[in-house]
């Protein structure tokens, strides 16, 4: 019996490792290609053992750093702005819900229903008139729009979980709405904020459509940088893999490190 259970456990562990390997394979394959020569990258049968070369990174590095900076500024900037706008709204909707609160929440979520491509022409014209084309503020503006509903929605669900009695007690002590917000709601929902911020950063980092159409060179983030390597002439799998590796590596490392926060944050609010 004991042996049977141990065997079953070992088998399940093996299965887990196998699924994980399958999920990681495309990435590993891409990382490997980044260190191959172009000829090795599309060799049949595939090459598994090779002497790594670094020249692909040399080709890819050209405009990497400005794009990296733009990605960082746009992702962090939009997350901060979405939080500044979204946290008070989430708090008010959670702690002072009126009859229209649910409607407001649903409406905010529904602003995400329009495919970006459906509004790009009006957006482009507005950006042109406001001189926001190819600027980081312009990009931050759009990413905030994209993430704000998420912030309100997620933070609302965290803040409704804070026991109402805590607010009651504060009120008895004469706390103002502002004090409730800064003194109770914010400190008690930090894990949720971390998780939400993480999702916002990931979505902003990976966004490509607005970036491609609303920036040219000065404000172009990494998602535009990587698009350059999708060529229609010539064979550049290895170079493309190197560029892709450079593009995903920052967010991967960040995600791996912050993964614990994400789990902790998610378990607090939206998912009990």
């Amino acid at each position, binding site marked *: 019996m004991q042996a049977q259970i141990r065997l079953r456990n070992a088998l399940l562990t093996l299965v887990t490792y196998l699924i994980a390997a399958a999920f990681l394979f495309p990435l590993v394959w891409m990382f490997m290609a980044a260190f191959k020569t172009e000829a090795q990258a599309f060799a049949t049968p595939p090459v598994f053992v090779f002497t790594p070369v670094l020249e692909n990174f040399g080709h890819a590095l050209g405009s990497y750093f400005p794009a990296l900076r733009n990605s960082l500024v746009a992702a962090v900037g939009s997350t901060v702005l979405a939080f500044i706008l979204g946290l008070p709204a989430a708090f008010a909707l959670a702690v002072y819900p009126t009859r229209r609160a649910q409607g407001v929440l649903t409406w905010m979520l529904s*602003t995400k229903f329009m495919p970006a491509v459906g509004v790009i022409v009006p957006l482009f014209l507005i950006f042109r008139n406001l001189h926001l084309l190819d600027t980081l503020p312009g990009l931050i503006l759009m990413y905030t729009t994209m993430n704000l509903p998420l912030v309100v929605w997620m933070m609302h669900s965290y803040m409704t979980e804070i026991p109402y009695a805590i607010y009651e007690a504060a009120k008895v002590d004469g706390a103002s709405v502002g004090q409730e917000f800064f003194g109770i709601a914010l400190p008690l929902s930090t894990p949720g904020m971390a998780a939400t911020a993480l999702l916002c950063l990931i979505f902003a980092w990976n966004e490509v459509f607005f970036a491609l159409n609303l920036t040219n060179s000065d404000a172009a983030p990494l998602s535009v940088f990587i698009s350059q390597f999708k060529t229609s002439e010539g064979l550049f799998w290895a170079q493309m893999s190197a560029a892709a590796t450079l593009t995903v590596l920052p967010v991967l490392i960040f995600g791996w490190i912050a993964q614990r926060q994400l789990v902790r944050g998610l378990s607090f609010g939206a*998912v009990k």
Partner: protein
Amino acid sequence: MTAAATTPATSAPTPRRGLRLSPAALIWPAMLYLILTTQVPFFMTVYYSFFRYNLAIPGSRPFVGFANYQNLLTDPQNLHILWNTVVLAGGTLILTLIIGAALALLLNRDFPGRALLRTLLISSFLIMPVVTAVVWKNMLMNPVFGFFSWVVTGLGGHPVDWLTQYPMASVIAMITWEWTPFAMLILLTGLQSLPDEQLEAARLDGASPWQEFRYVVLPHWTQAIQVVVLMETIALLQVYGEIYGSTSGGPGVATTNLPYFIYQKAFAEYNIGLASAAGVITVILTNVLAAYMLRLLTRAGRGE
């Protein structure tokens, strides 16, 4: 987590005198921001949808009434596109839920390397859709040079041209790869708040693993599943980059969904009028679907 946490605040407290910051004033900045950045472009889109407006033909933009809508609603091919949108989003959603649930259950056990695996497994969620499409299309699914074909021929089969022979399945596989970690994470966090005693009690009662899952785990997961369904539905109905980078909507219209269709109309044909009309229809359909889903989910939630 505590019992009190599950009851959201339902009754509004009485306004106090000397209140500096009214709750409404806290909501308005976010509201105003979203109105300006989403509703203004949206109404411009509605406006354009009544015109024959082609970017490549300047100087002529006649008002055509509902002609663009009529054009869209009478072409039987568009029904196919609508169906593709549903299959793509629905298929991916179901797959991510099943695989995500399996992974969550597997990772909830104690075994060596568990923390590392959990960390590594979220990787595919962090990858840019453009990169996903390019890597899958060229390096994995290419019938001659791709890794999958090498595996299939190695096993004695014929090289498979995934994107032509199984276009929709290929795209779904790609997007499932991206979104499974998300479902896994949410379901895993849901599991971790499940008290061990509940499972032990079930086991003492002689419940089979299936019964354990069906009567203990699944009910506990209701809210986690709701979150996954809602978040993923919104994202999956907007999928565009992965299609653009892999199949370009083909062969034929086999993998063209609504956003990609709009993209084609707007940027391959510069037919902004028609693209706008299609955008408006998408918003209406998504709203109907979301309202229906929200109701279904709240009912399922209340059913517990």
